[in-house]
């Protein structure tokens, strides 16, 4: 970065010709010129806000009033805030349960789709639909499905004589947790399944044939051929999945808004609640910043997943 800027200065200072044409003659100058639009956007609306967010976490800024530096006070306050810790617990529970379920069901669906099926492309297209439709709008459908009085699930179970009265899906803390996780898994399965399917299709059939000739059962072929070759892509897909689940906001906001009694508040929804309707921008920013260590962990995990993949493929670049 700094070399390109120096380069630009040097080129601009050297002659009277228009900077643009001088710039486009050197490799670095042209690179800078081409990077400029993207860099401006990302620096102004991504890097700067990221820094600003960290700074806001150290201030008592609220809506309509610029704050002053108060050090770690927000974090001390959060440290003793049971609702914050509940949201951390909820986020970890939500992320871990939903990710494990998405992985198992997604892998299962990918393996099914990898078989010889009629209308395979049609199935693939249909299965991706939950992921394509706006989350808020599909979450509204779930809200109606989870209605406390007229839930279709309750009705079917009552018709079958399995339960006596409607299940209070979103009113009871544990039911609410299970319901939002179910809705999240529903939306996440297609992403995991289609990405893993793409990975499965890169595994050469000849390896399976060789293993089968050596007498491997279908379980052994899955365990010792498919799974090891799929591991790198599983690492990347699951990192993305964990990242998106951990920072989820929309689903909770539509279904429960964090209720009942904060049982489904995630860190993202709590951060929103404190910052925007509550007006405490500083405190909200502090909660958002508290998510960063977890995200860094996931990103490092992804990085090493990618590295291992490169190494396995024997690629130099």
């Amino acid at each position, binding site marked *: 970065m700094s070399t390109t800027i120096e380069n630009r200065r040097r080129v601009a200072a050297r002659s009277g010709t228009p900077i643009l044409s001088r710039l486009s003659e050197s490799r670095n100058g042209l690179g800078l010129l081409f990077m400029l639009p993207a860099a401006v956007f990302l620096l102004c609306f991504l890097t700067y*806000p990221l820094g600003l967010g960290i700074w806001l976490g150290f201030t008592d800024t609220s809506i309509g009033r610029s704050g002053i530096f108060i050090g770690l006070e927000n974090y001390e306050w959060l440290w003793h805030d049971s609702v914050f810790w509940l949201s951390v617990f909820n986020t970890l529970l939500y992320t871990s349960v939903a990710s494990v379920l998405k992985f198992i069901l997604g892998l299962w669906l990918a393996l099914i789709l990898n078989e010889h099926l009629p209308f395979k492309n049609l199935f693939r297209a249909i299965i*991706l*639909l939950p992921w394509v439709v706006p989350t808020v*709008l599909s979450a509204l459908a779930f809200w*109606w499905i989870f209605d406390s009085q007229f839930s279709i699930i309750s009705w079917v179970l009552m018709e079958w004589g399995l339960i006596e009265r409607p299940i209070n899906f979103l009113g009871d803390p544990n039911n609410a947790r299970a319901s939002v996780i179910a809705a999240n898994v*529903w939306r996440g399965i297609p992403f995991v399944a289609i990405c893993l399917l793409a990975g499965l299709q890169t595994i050469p059939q000849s390896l399976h044939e060789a293993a089968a000739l*050596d007498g491997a059962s279908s379980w052994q072929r899955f365990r010792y051929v498919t799974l090891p070759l799929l591991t790198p892509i599983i690492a990347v897909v699951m990192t993305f999945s964990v990242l*998106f689940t951990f920072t989820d906001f929309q689903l909770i906001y539509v279904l429960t808004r964090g209720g009942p009694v904060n049982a489904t508040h995630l860190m993202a929804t709590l951060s929103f609640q404190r910052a925007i309707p509550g007006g405490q*921008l500083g405190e909200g920013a502090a909660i958002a910043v508290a998510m960063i260590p977890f995200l860094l962990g996931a990103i490092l995990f992804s990085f090493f997943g990618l590295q291992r993949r490169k190494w396995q493929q024997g690629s130099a670049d």
Partner: protein
Amino acid sequence: MTDQAIATKTATDDIAGLDQHDTLMRRLVVIYLPLFVFVFVLLFPFYWMAITAIKPNHQLTNYQDYSPFWVIRPTLEHIRYLLFDTSYPGWLWNTMIVSIFSTIISLAASIFAAYAIERIRFSGARVTGMMIFLAYLVPPSILFIPLAFIVFQVGIYDTRLALILTYPTFLIPFCTWLLMGYFRSIPFELEESALVDGATRWQILTKIVLPLAVPGLISAGIFAFTLSWNEFIYALTFISSSENKTVPVGVLTELVRGDVYEWGALMSGALIGSLPVVILYSFFVDYYVSSMTGAVKE
């Protein structure tokens, strides 16, 4: 070990030796039944959405006299109400404008950035590529508070411009990352021969690279459009007046009033709001899949 191997070998041999009917039964149980369950569960919410959208109000909650799974004398009343008595058409229009403009901006910026990183190879190109990937991993839920602060100070709070300018923050990293993969697949020799023939970088980009990367551009464009259409947290935070809202925000904040939910109108709103992306998706399924898996595989 050897015993086990022999045992499994005979087992597989047995399976291979069974007649066609049994293999079909096995396939039915192991493949088609789970597939059917998956498809049913994944599609049921859409069916429920659609059937609710056309149910007359008196059938909506009366499960005794009418089967909830079917509708007798469907009505377009909810859709009519949505289109003529609410600001819904305005929200559709806003979402369309915001999605189209932010997609165009992101695509343009990403083409240049991806080409610079992949082909001009200025010093620090690899580091820049890595930074772009990291930028893709920064989630909107930790950026919306400082962005709201900035949007307010710049004076574009409660305008469509606020969304058009902020959506590229998650679109540019994604599109750049995707296009880098496409540009990498275009042979170097083509560019070299153009250089020898005296073409400038600009001519190479517009006349050689871009025409070859059209599938990549379509993939990135469709994906970016869908992502902007689905965006929620920025639109919820930066927009306050009804006429500037996007579909997801409008449906949730304006159609949900009090304790009596108008499920018919809500579900029609969700259905119509989903249609544009679903239609776009159905035309370009393969591009969509390749962009989704491409971003992960690179």
